[in-house]
């Protein structure tokens, strides 16, 4: 019997009482029960919605064509076949897949499917195929998105359009379509219209939606979004001074250090090549923040960004601390958070400077050795109370662990070895004009601002390399102070 079809009716007829079945030909269980559906159609009031073939099932006279999936979307169909019993327009009960006893009970047809197995699981509804829920939400839902739509002409390449509009940092981005942005927003429970912060330098209000758009462009997965949102919040804190971090001629960029369980959950890298390429979360989270500053905040090189040289980390710089086998408390714990909390810390820093020491086997030697490199931060004769980020590798950490040195002890010893006699670094000393004022010649001068040296454990298991990242020259209350924010997951 040839089936006749009519348009899918997304709304169940008002006051409808009877049965609704949602099926697709591509599902073996749906094909298995096609005679059941034909029998039901002969006995009961039955509406069948077919997702992929309006000629299916063949024994039913009138099949509703749900090729557009509107019915399935609006009624949250997840499995086919789904059987719904309706009474006066209200859904009374729903069955998914074929369970003979349940179908018999619901339909009160006691001989239904006599020759069929008692059970056959259903298949996924086409409306929940990967990427489909977002497309359908875009097509049929009431879009919560407020951003202006930019149409890409048929002859136009969307990747080129992104460059032409100045939305890119110079690398290709993922074009932010509505479906992708909706998918990104599934990564947070926060409303798209919620204000995250006011982004410098233009001091433009930034919503969760705008962060999500830029996170799509950066290449983030939805589960990274909470980290990006926390990073944007941190960058907007007055004490971080993002405007200055951007506007300075210095190298600085917000460097993101992630702590806590979220590192594992989103697959961040804290091991080999931790500061390098290759891990999607590390690479895209920092980039998303930079794109927010560029696109929402209007911060662009040569505009308010006046960096003389800049550094590659200005594309995005984000990594996770290696917490699980660290002998020391993590950066976040040191900064007052619990180990089970996920946090992101923003540090206004320059590029990575390696410190190699493959000979020190005592903590005393290694501390002096690290201190020697740390004394060159900004300039070997600069003793203004700098900020820096010291990244200790596992093999260097081992030296401290074997000797039982706590982080506090290391800090205190390090301070001793980064404090020098003023006369060695004053202007003119070593025949170098730059230096500290002559009046400090008789003083002991400390290299770092109290609280200005951040210490993090990260890197691959082999290699006696650590690294230092210099903080922005304008640090402390008159410049930038590192900021740690809890990540809302």
């Amino acid at each position, binding site marked *: 019997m040839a089936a006749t079809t009519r348009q899918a009716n997304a709304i169940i007829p008002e006051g409808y009482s009877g049965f609704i079945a949602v099926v697709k030909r591509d599902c073996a269980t749906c094909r298995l029960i096609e005679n059941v559906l034909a029998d039901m159609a002969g006995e009961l009031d039955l509406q069948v919605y077919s997702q992929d073939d309006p000629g299916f099932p063949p024994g039913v006279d009138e099949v509703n064509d749900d090729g557009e999936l509107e019915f399935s979307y609006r009624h949250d169909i997840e499995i086919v076949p789904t059987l719904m019993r309706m009474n006066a327009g209200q859904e009374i009960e729903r069955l998914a897949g074929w369970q003979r006893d349940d179908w018999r009970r619901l339909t009160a047809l006691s001989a239904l499917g006599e020759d069929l197995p008692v059970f056959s699981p259903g298949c996924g509804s086409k409306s929940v195929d990967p990427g489909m829920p977002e497309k359908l939400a875009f097509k049929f839902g009431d879009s919560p*998105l407020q*951003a*202006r*739509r*930019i*149409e*890409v*002409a*048929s002859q136009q390449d*969307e990747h080129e*359009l*992104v460059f032409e509009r100045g*939305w890119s940092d110079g690398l290709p981005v993922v*074009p*932010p*379509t*509505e479906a992708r*942005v909706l998918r990104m927003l599934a990564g947070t429970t926060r409303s798209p219209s919620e204000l995250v912060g006011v*982004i410098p330098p*233009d001091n*433009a*209000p*930034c919503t969760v*939606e*705008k962060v999500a*758009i*830029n996170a799509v*462009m950066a290449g983030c997965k939805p589960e990274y979004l909470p980290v990006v949102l926390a990073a944007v919040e941190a960058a907007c804190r007055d004490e971080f*001074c993002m*405007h*200055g971090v951007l506007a*300075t001629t210095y190298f600085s960029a917000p460097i993101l250090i992630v702590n806590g369980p979220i590192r594992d959950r989103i697959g961040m890298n804290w091991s080999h090549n931790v500061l390098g390429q290759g891990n999607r979360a590390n690479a895209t989270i920092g980039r998303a923040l930079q*794109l927010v500053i560029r*696109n*929402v*905040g*209007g911060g662009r090189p040569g505009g308010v960004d006046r960096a003389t040289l800049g550094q590659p980390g200005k594309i995005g710089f984000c990594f996770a601390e290696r917490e699980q086998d660290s002998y020391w408390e993590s950066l976040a714990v040191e900064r007052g958070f619990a180990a089970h909390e996920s946090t992101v810390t923003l540090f206004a820093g320059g590029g990575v400077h390696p410190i190699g020491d493959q000979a020190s086997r005592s903590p005393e030697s290694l501390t002096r050795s690290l201190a020697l490199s740390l004394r060159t931060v900004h300039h070997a004769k600069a003793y203004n109370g700098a900020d820096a980020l010291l990244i200790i590798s596992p093999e260097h950490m081992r030296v401290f662990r074997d000797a039982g040195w706590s982080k506090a002890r290391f800090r205190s010893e390090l301070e001793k070895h980064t404090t020098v006699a003023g006369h060695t670094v004053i202007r003119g000393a070593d025949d170098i004009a730059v230096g500290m004022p002559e009046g400090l010649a008789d003083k002991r001068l400390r290299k770092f601002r109290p609280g200005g040296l951040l210490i993090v454990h990260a890197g691959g298991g082999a290699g006696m390399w650590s690294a230092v990242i210099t903080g922005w020259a*304008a640090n402390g209350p*008159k*410049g*930038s102070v590192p900021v740690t924010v809890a990540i809302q997951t």
Partner: protein
Amino acid sequence: MIKLLDPTSEGQAAARDALPRPKSLVDKRVALLDISKPRGDVFLDRVQQHLQSLGVDTRRYEKPTFARVAPVDLKQEIVSECDLVIEALAD
């Protein structure tokens, strides 16, 4: 047709023309703004001397730190007290 969502603030800066240059400094008061960069004071001392020798009224101001934008209070103070500003922008 593909539609993309605008990642920018969608704001547009108000276009403002620069104020006309004053024809003379007679009866004008000039604000001298030090942004707290090293040696900004040296530069402004010289400018102030020069303006004073011309009989021009000056008044000195200072930003708390060069790393941040000027506080609104300071901007309002300058606007309400002076006609022009000379800023020592960099060291």
